[in-house]
């Protein structure tokens, strides 16, 4: 069960928590050229993200994501709260969380790492930069890194 191998048949499940449809689409576009087969799920706010992770309501059949891409500034439930809840949950804390946000404030960076974010990335303002970042995520987290297996599966 090595996720980084291209031979692995099951797609890699990625949860993107992002309120801007433009960014969602850009992320999708960037991941189109990904080396691995990625199944991208999108939650538009923090509440929905938690519902997806806890398989609540309509997300009862939601898969457990292998990687979470989390924006910090979200409606209803803030990304910081989502991060905190994930990292405090014994079943979810093993999922790597990549903070992908427009904020480049030192305070946000520091706080995110304090809350055990696995990495922090500021969204580049230009398209090329953004594409590169997403491809790097793909390359690093989904190809290089060995992700933990779902303890339940």
């Amino acid at each position: 069960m090595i996720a980084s191998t291209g031979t692995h048949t099951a797609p890699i499940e990625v949860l993107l928590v992002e309120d801007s449809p433009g960014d969602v689409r850009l992320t999708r576009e960037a991941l189109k050229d990904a080396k691995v087969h990625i199944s991208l799920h999108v939650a538009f706010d923090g509440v929905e993200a938690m519902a997806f992770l806890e398989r609540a309501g309509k997300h009862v059949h939601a898969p457990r994501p292998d990687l979470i891409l989390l924006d910090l500034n979200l409606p209803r439930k803030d990304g910081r709260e989502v991060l905190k809840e994930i990292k405090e949950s014994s079943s979810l804390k093993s999922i790597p969380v990549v903070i992908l946000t427009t904020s480049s404030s030192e305070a946000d960076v520091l706080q995110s790492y304090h809350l055990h974010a696995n990495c922090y990335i500021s969204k580049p303002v230009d398209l090329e930069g953004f594409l590169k970042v997403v491809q790097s995520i793909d390359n690093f987290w989904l190809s290089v890194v060995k992700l933990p297996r779902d303890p339940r599966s």
Partner: protein
Amino acid sequence: MQPIRTMQFGFGAALAVLIVVGAVAYRSVIASNESTRWTEHTHEVLEHITSLRSAMANVESGYRDFAFSGDETFLQSARVNTQRLHEELSTSRALTTDNPVQQNRIAILAGLLQQTVLDGEQLHAVTGSMEREERRLLTERSTDEERRFRQAKHVVILACAAGFLMAVIAGWMLQRNLSARERAEAKYRGLLEAAPDAMVVVNQFGRIVLLNLQAEKRFGYRSNELVGQHVKNLIPEGFAERLIADGTRSAVEALAQQIGMGIELQGRRKDGSDFPIEIMLSPLQSPEGILVTAAIRDISVRKSAEEYLVKTVGELKRSNDDLGHFAYVASHDLQEPLRMVSSYTQLLAKRYQGRLDADADEFIAYAVDGSNRMQQLIRDLLAYSRAGTGEMEFREISSELALHKALVNLQSAIQESCAVVTYDSLPAVTTDDTQLSQVFQNLIANAIKYRSVEVPRIHVSATADAGRERVFSVRDNGLGIDPKYFDRIFVLFQRLHGREQFAGTGIGLAICKKILERLGGRIWVESQPEKGSIFHFALPGAAAK
């Protein structure tokens, strides 16, 4: 002070002279009286002696006539006169106790009178010598009396003259002294009146001794209404307490602590209204003890100006903060939608370049360029609004290290342009090193960017700390600037060149200016077109802190 001493001494001397003269006159009069008494006494004694002698003659003639005529009446008369004779004799004895010679004669006389046969010759001789003695005494005493009287008269006249003279001298001195005091007081009053401030002179008990017209006017009193009043009527609090000694210090000490300081207090007008004042105290030695001259200035205008200033500064700061916040929020929040515009126009360009028609390509190109520029502007606006706003850390740093940091950041630009950056040994300064680095970086980046055809040569130097400020200079051999643009170049987004010539939004110098203003310094330029530029900036010197 000196005239008072002299006057006291003068009066003392006059008094002493008068006492002496009075005593002498008194003694003279007493002596004269005594003399008169003695003269009168002598007259009395003489009278009795005469009477004694007449009694004696009567006794003699009484007996003689009786012997002639045998008439009993004569005998009777002789006996009566004998009796008188004895009486006169004892009176004379009592009167002449002071004179042993006369007493002796009286004793002889008494002895003669005891004899059965009276010796008329001898009796006459003794009484005669007694009378002569008294007459001699009378002459002597009269002369003495006259002399003493004359003497007493002279002494009294002299005393009167001395008294008069003293009175005249004292009067003259007093007059002279008073006029000196009046003159001094007039001078002092003139001085008070000439002062622009309200002046009040207060004694150490807090009573007003003297004040000028301005003081009366300022506090709404009529002329001389205030003299003698307590200063608390004018300044209810904080002034009298400063004058009057308490347990631990004397009035002089208490005052010494207040001298020269402007003390802000409340003054109270006659109508009870208060107004802000500032008082300056100075002590004044006077014969009545320490006096305090208080210069009182109405600071209502200054106070309201101060309040206005504080208010205005507060408003300005608030509006500035608002503006800063606005710039930050605007640039930050604008970035999000702009990122979308920019990303998708770029995506459009990437995917569809050459696949639509030429017009579409051109339109897309303009959209991409516009959004890129706008992004740059917003980034710069954000940088500008952040410049010098965060927490500044003022400490002693090496300005040379700050320059090094800037040069590291500019490494690629320096290499690309083959620029030669030199610098003198740069001093330690007390400032924020990140901000100083930023200033160096912007100035050197500009020097490289606006270079001429020559190899860019940039030199950084600093003056010695001149106390108030220390000036750094960044000199280049670049394009130079027309002096008419000197002000414009420091304004946000003001550029002297087209975008085709030089990229950039015109932010660098605006940021430098903002940073230096925050650091308490300033920035200016010295330049001629084609002759290079020298950008100077000053940081506060050691003496300015």
